[in-house]
């Protein structure tokens, strides 16, 4: 299998310069809203420290908390299922649906079910699946994957949504977002009323009470779960937190980090099934325990999926989520994906400038750049990068490690830039010159100037 070539996919994305700039701006706008919201909370940094420490504790006692959650949820009347991988998860969900003769299913946003490719699996088995989050419905109708974990259709312009809705749900071809949202409301209410079952994700699962907390703005998770006779919640095993009081910490951080809202419009706590209905939860591993076993990358399990690292990332903003070729794009995705399959995603950790902005905004203070750097080392050591990149890096490493070699190389490059600038500006030879010209070389380096002006030392 070829490694995901983020750079190639991104090259296609940036071909439309205007669109790239628009995408960049849209996400930067969200990042700025996040800043405003964060700065309005005096104890923001204390909350981040707390969240980080709570996660570190939780992950170090994860098995106990999972068992406690299972016990409490079961006592509340929730049916708890466990799935080692995506296939088992999908099989469990299909089994529950089949036993109740479910034909029509509504879903609210769940990155886990995207990761497990649940929708195509259910559709193959004759279940009609309707995503009810507006952004998710847009990408589902367009037969695409979400390009962002919080804003699935951020890559689509309103004119494209209008054309899509016109073609698929019989709306008029009108790009007004208010009109399009209204058209979707009518379309989705029909599906919600007719549904035999609802699937939601889980933002937080509280071990102490067995409560499952789901955060939405549209109200679609609640409409689905409360109208259908069957609700299945699907969660990664990293979603459990110890106690109710910890919700206070995470909920104060989540929406502010994600969209700059003080909290989502709805923060729903599902504890017990409503009378006459069923509530199930599927707890999924799918590679998470493996990641737990890697001390260098364990911290990535702290992620609460706010998307702040995507919004701030200069590479994500200018290359789009689809360029990553994985369910969770952006900086955190580039840390998670190699854990699933290093050979397939070896190049994703290179889709970063290591500028560190992601770590600065992360509400649970995951050191993403350090993990990206570590994956790069493992990718090279495992032989997952091209010979040219490997040799280039070795040459660079050898050069930068010795003062005399560095000085000699500098002189050589300055001379080449003056005498044969086209040589170094050839993208095939020097990929860095793709899309940019190398600067005009100065006559001498600072060190040379210093020696000349101030004597030899």
């Amino acid at each position, binding site marked *: 299998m070829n490694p995901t070539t983020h750079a190639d996919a991104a090259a296609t994305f940036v071909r439309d310069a205007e669109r790239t700039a628009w995408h960049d701006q*849209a996400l930067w*706008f969200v990042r700025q809203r996040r800043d405003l919201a964060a700065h309005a909370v*005096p104890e923001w940094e204390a909350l981040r420290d*707390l969240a980080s*420490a*709570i996660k*570190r*504790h939780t*992950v*170090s*006692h*994860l*098995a106990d908390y999972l*068992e406690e959650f299972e016990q409490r949820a079961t006592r*509340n009347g929730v049916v708890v299922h*466990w799935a*080692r991988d995506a296939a088992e998860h999908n099989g469990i969900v299909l089994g529950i649906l089949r036993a109740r003769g479910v034909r029509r299913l509504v879903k609210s946003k769940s990155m886990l079910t995207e990761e497990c490719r649940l929708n195509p699996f259910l559709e193959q088995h004759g279940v009609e699946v309707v995503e*009810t989050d*507006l*952004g998710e419905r*847009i990408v589902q109708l367009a037969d695409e994957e979400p390009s962002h974990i919080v*804003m699935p259709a951020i890559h*689509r312009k*309103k004119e494209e949504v209008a054309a899509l809705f016109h073609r698929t749900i019989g709306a008029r071809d009108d790009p007004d*977002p*208010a009109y399009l*949202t*209204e058209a979707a*409301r009518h379309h*989705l209410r029909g599906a*919600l*009323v*007719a549904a035999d079952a609802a699937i939601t994700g889980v933002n937080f699962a509280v071990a102490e009470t067995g409560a499952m907390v789901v955060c939405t*703005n549209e*109200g*679609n998770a*609640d*409409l689905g779960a409360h*109208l259908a006779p069957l609700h299945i919640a699907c969660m990664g095993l990293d979603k459990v937190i*110890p106690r*109710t*009081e910890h919700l*206070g910490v995470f*909920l*104060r951080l989540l929406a502010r980090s994600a969209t700059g*809202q*003080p*909290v989502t*419009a*709805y*923060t729903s*706590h599902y*504890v*017990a099934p*409503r009378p006459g209905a069923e509530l199930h939860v599927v*707890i999924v*591993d799918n590679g998470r*325990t493996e990641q*737990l*076993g890697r001390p260098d990358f364990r911290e990535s399990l702290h992620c609460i999926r706010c998307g702040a690292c995507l919004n701030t990332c200069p590479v994500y903003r200018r290359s789009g989520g689809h360029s990553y070729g994985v369910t969770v794009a952006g900086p955190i995705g580039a840390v998670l994906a190699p854990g699933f399959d290093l050979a397939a995603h070896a190049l994703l950790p290179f889709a970063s400038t290591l500028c560190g902005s992601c770590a600065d905004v992360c509400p649970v203070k995951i050191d993403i750049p350090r993990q990206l750097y570590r994956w790069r080392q493992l990718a090279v050591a495992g032989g997952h990068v091209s010979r040219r990149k490997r040799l280039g890096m070795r040459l660079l490493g050898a050069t930068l490690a010795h003062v005399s070699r560095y000085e000699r190389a500098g002189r050589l490059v300055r001379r080449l830039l003056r005498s044969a600038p086209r040589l170094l500006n050839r993208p095939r030879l020097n990929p860095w010159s793709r899309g940019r010209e190398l600067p005009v070389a100065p006559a001498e380096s600072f060190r040379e100037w210093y020696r000349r002006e101030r004597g030899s030392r």
Partner: protein
Amino acid sequence: MSREAILAAVRAHQAEAAPLPAIPAFGAGAHTELVARFKTVLEQVGGAWVERRAGSDLAAIIRSHYPDTARIVSTVDEPPDSTFVVTEETAPGDLVEVHLAIVRGRLGVAENAAVWVDDEHLPHRALPFVAEHLVLLLAPNDLMPDMHAAYAALAGRPFGYGAFISGPSKTADIEQSLVIGAQGPRSLLLVFDRGDSSRPMHGTLG
């Protein structure tokens, strides 16, 4: 069995025990400040509010804000009376006919204008979501400064379902344009009812 396999793998892989930090008390602020902050944030999240003077008529407030409302489901013990009956058994197709729901909130959170509602006050869990418009009643005494205080106040309260509701339903999924009224209520009116005590109309306090 997968359960055992997963738990065994977690136990084999989890790190050395790290301590659980205590959550400190963050600054609360004066009560009058809480009300003001709540109102400001509620407006920011697309909600509206009205203060009810002692002894004044809730029905009049509803009439002035929602003049053309036909199908009202009220869960509070005063006029306006429900014109539409919702029970646990009401079918989805009928539930979505609800035009206006009036529900008492158990507590409000000043920092984010969230109001706690749970199934003790709800004839059907879907009610605050299916209604085209939602009116929440809240006593100012039930305002908490932040989410920490809110969860502390809810501790021990038994519920099968509960939610913090902050403003009407909304989406910005199309080009980051904020649209109020996505799948749930198109508007939210918060009635501060000073005339009433903080007691809920149904059920008991936990």
